[in-house]
């Protein structure tokens, strides 16, 4: 008998009550030829044996903690408050089910309501959902929302400065639904080319998508994009990969963007080799019934007490089925709770201080690059938040050399896509010390 299962006496009692001699009789409905002869796996292991195996995996990795890390490109290393993990480890939160019975799920529901509020505050939008899987699928859901709202328009215009992985995922989904994707290149400053964008939009466009800060870390001209989208009757969508940037940069909501979406991973969510992170999507009131994902709303119970409940569920797959706004069921609820806790801890001052510190350290490194004769910024005229592209013809080579000195200098742009100018994407956060920044600059100088 296994420690996670019932025991022999339990089984005996159940078999007797059911009136069969063995469990095998209960599988009689499964034809013989569909049976597994055996399961070619090892026998069950103790916790200690499992630990040994998994420490083995862990020790065969090198974590960024062992180096000065400047890696970004969609996953960012910011402060991780100890309280956040301690609270999500409460069994009442992490072993709870989706809150379909609200009377016994007010903890989960109120936390999601707070999450939705935080996202609206960060994005200056009217409504936000209870989370999506990640930033890439959030962008997809935003485009599909626009496609539904804009009726028969079958084209979406996308800046080439979108993270290539996000673009790849968008392509996969759009191909299935017959949505055409047009790409607009970046200009010399690393921002979406305004003239090209103006030429690309038209009456058949349902959405215009920019990421800001974009894959180069450059801040896009959101007001211009909003206006061009509005001008052709398309929805404007802002994707956000570095969520802490919302602490220092005016969000698309302020400029009338229909959707601000992306990933909140940067707010202390562990990198975990790529997942789970936290997708978010926030939009205007008028689009609320087209939103994908769960929504928590406020109401009262029979005694007049304020309480929270899943609402507008007729959008969702379990009711609308083939006509649902999305197929999403399980989302990333616990990660949303985690981010809610982090944002509560940071609060009004912390969200800004965190962003300003990251920005200041990044500017410090950029200044060092600018004053160096050997190092070049790919987009010197593009304003950035905490990430920028260092121009280099052999980024992988440079990264390999710096790795030997205990520096993870960034991510090679060529690793993301051969279409990006070759170089190193350097991300700086409040986790980097001045000493690390200086060491980075000196090492880069030496190696270039």
């Amino acid at each position, binding site marked *: *008998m296994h420690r*996670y299962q019932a025991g022999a006496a339990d089984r005996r009692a159940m078999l007797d009550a059911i009136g069969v001699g063995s*469990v095998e009789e*209960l599988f*009689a*409905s*499964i034809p013989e*030829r569909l049976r*597994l002869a055996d399961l070619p*796996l090892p026998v069950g292991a103790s916790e200690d044996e499992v630990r040994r*195996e*998994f420490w*083995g*995996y862990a*020790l065969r*990795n090198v974590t*960024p*903690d062992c180096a000065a*890390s400047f890696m970004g490109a969609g*996953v960012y290393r910011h402060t991780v408050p100890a*309280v956040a993990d301690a609270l999500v480890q*409460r069994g009442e*939160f992490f*072993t709870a*089910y*989706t*809150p379909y019975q609200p*009377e016994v*799920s*007010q*903890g989960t529901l109120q936390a999601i309501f707070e999450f939705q*509020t935080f996202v*609206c505050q960060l994005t200056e939008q009217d409504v936000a959902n209870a989370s999506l*899987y990640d930033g*890439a*699928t959030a962008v997809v859901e935003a485009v599909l929302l626009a496609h539904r709202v804009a009726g028969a328009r079958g084209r979406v215009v996308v800046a080439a400065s979108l993270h290539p992985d996000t673009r790849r*995922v968008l392509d996969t989904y759009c191909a299935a639904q017959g949505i055409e994707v047009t790409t607009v290149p970046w200009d010399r400053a690393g921002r979406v080319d305004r003239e090209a964008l103006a030429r690309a939009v038209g009456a058949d466009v349902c959405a215009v998508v920019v990421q800001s800060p974009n894959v180069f870390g450059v801040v896009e001209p959101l007001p211009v994009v909003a206006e061009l989208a509005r001008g052709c009757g398309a929805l404007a969508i802002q994707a956000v990969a570095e969520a802490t940037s919302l*602490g220092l*940069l005016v969000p698309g909501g302020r400029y009338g963007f229909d959707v601000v979406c992306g990933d909140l991973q940067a707010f202390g969510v562990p990198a*975990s*080799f790529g997942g*789970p992170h936290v997708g978010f999507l926030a939009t205007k009131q008028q689009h609320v019934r087209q939103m994908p994902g769960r929504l928590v709303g406020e*109401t009262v*119970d*029979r005694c007049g007490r304020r309480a929270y409940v899943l609402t507008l569920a007729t959008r969702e797959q379990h009711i609308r089925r083939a006509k649902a706004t999305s197929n999403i069921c*399980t989302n990333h*609820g*616990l990660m*949303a709770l985690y981010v809610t806790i982090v944002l*509560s*801890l940071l*609060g*009004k*001052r912390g969200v800004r201080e965190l962003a300003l510190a990251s920005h200041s350290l990044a*500017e410090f490194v950029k200044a060092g690059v600018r004053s160096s004769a050997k190092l070049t910024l790919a987009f010197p005229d593009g*304003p950035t938040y905490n990430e920028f592209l260092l121009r280099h013809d052999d980024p992988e080579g440079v*990264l390999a050399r710096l*790795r030997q000195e205990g520096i993870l200098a960034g*991510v090679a742009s060529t690793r993301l896509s051969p279409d990006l100018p070759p170089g190193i994407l350097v991300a700086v956060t*409040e986790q980097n010390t001045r000493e690390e920044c200086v060491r980075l600059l000196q090492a880069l100088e030496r190696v270039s």
Partner: protein
Amino acid sequence: MTGHDTRAKEGLIFERSSPGRVGYQLPRLEVPLVDPAATLGEAARGEIEDLPEVSEVDVVRHFTRLSKWNYSLDEGLYPLGSCTMKYNPRINEELARLPGLAHLHPLQPEDQVQGALALMWELEQALVAITGMARVTLQPAAGAHGELTGMLMIRKALEARGERRRVVLVPDSAHGTNPASAVFAGFEVVELASTAEGTLDMEAVRRAVAEGGVAALMATVPNTLGVFEPAIAEVAKILHDAGAFLYLDGANLNAFVGVASPGAMGADALHINLHKTFSTPHGGGGPGAGPVAVSAALEPFLPVPTVERQGDRFVLAYDRPASIGKVRGFYGNFAMLVRALAYIRSLGRDGLRSMAEGAVLAANYLRKGLEGDYHLPYRGASLHEVVFDDSRQKAFGVTNIDIAKRLLDYGFHAPTMSFPLIVHGAMMIEPTESFGVDELDAFVRAMREIAREARETPEVVKQAPVTTPVARLDEVRAARSPILRWRR
């Protein structure tokens, strides 16, 4: 209710805010503070006015109190059919949090992440062994995401043959994500009516396939009534003979791991809910993971990258020209993959087999205990779940919803309500293998009490719940005038 009642006073975190309170401290900044107006111009943003100002203590108290309003699996039975609410082992939580796993950046060079890749490779091998299929993609973030991934692969496979088939057959008993995912993948859904036994109607399947244009059929095995589809292998043959594919929804895999092989059933794609069968926690609504096992026919279309073994090295392989591409950023919900593999190791081949046996035993035990008081709309042999309906209680004006709410008063979570759609007033019960007869007996006693109350004092059931932190909510108000955020 637990502990002292702080309910009346606990508000939203925003309502706890007090100017000047801080809940954090950042590392000391040793470089000059930049004036963002100078670097970012008009794009610079000031403080966000309505974000709360609370101390760390406030945050701990707030969320601790919130947690006490939740029922959770740690506390007791969650007999939710199709959700497989089984114990979430703590060793899995410990291992997923190892810095050597949790702190890895997905874009670190491969030689720095060999352990992570090895882990993913091992999980794929284990799932291949369990499903009897050719390969498994670990990319999808949830079951529905896996469904979409599987359907996209099927679409691509047809395109590769130069075929464009629009139709996907879905039984009326299917989970809503099935038709939703098929539509997302660009297909049209044709719903097939189930037989009187609640199973796939073979004649209807043959007719629909013969009409042409069918890309695939999506089936759940065992089906959403907990009954094994007796002719599933024949369905596969009909589909394959017509050049179509069989998609299996693996939500009910807990019923037959180590006992039966989806590969042998003829499945072309099968998603696996790691947050169901393989114990990763539900988290109040995710995150989960939905790996998809595929047959050799669909292998060329797997999402990239896959993890490949080359000697004693592991690599992320992108060289798959017919791949559907990517369905999400990076490689998968890695932290959930860690948990699932730890579970598989903890159980092993013996434990996995006893898992399925225990699940089927417990469901049948509950069926036996409840069939005296509740109506069984379908009487086929139950595997890991059983569906009752409220028809006997309806005679007294008591519905399945009322029964669900009254169960909360007895300290249990309700079963799955109103699903599958082919049963009016459905109550789908899946206890899983995690509980002993003491917990199961307590549940049966509660359900019997409620059946008695329905007969003798139905108002008591209709007024429930009365012992929970809140009573029944005005869901109509929530939908008519949605308030979806706090405002000052």
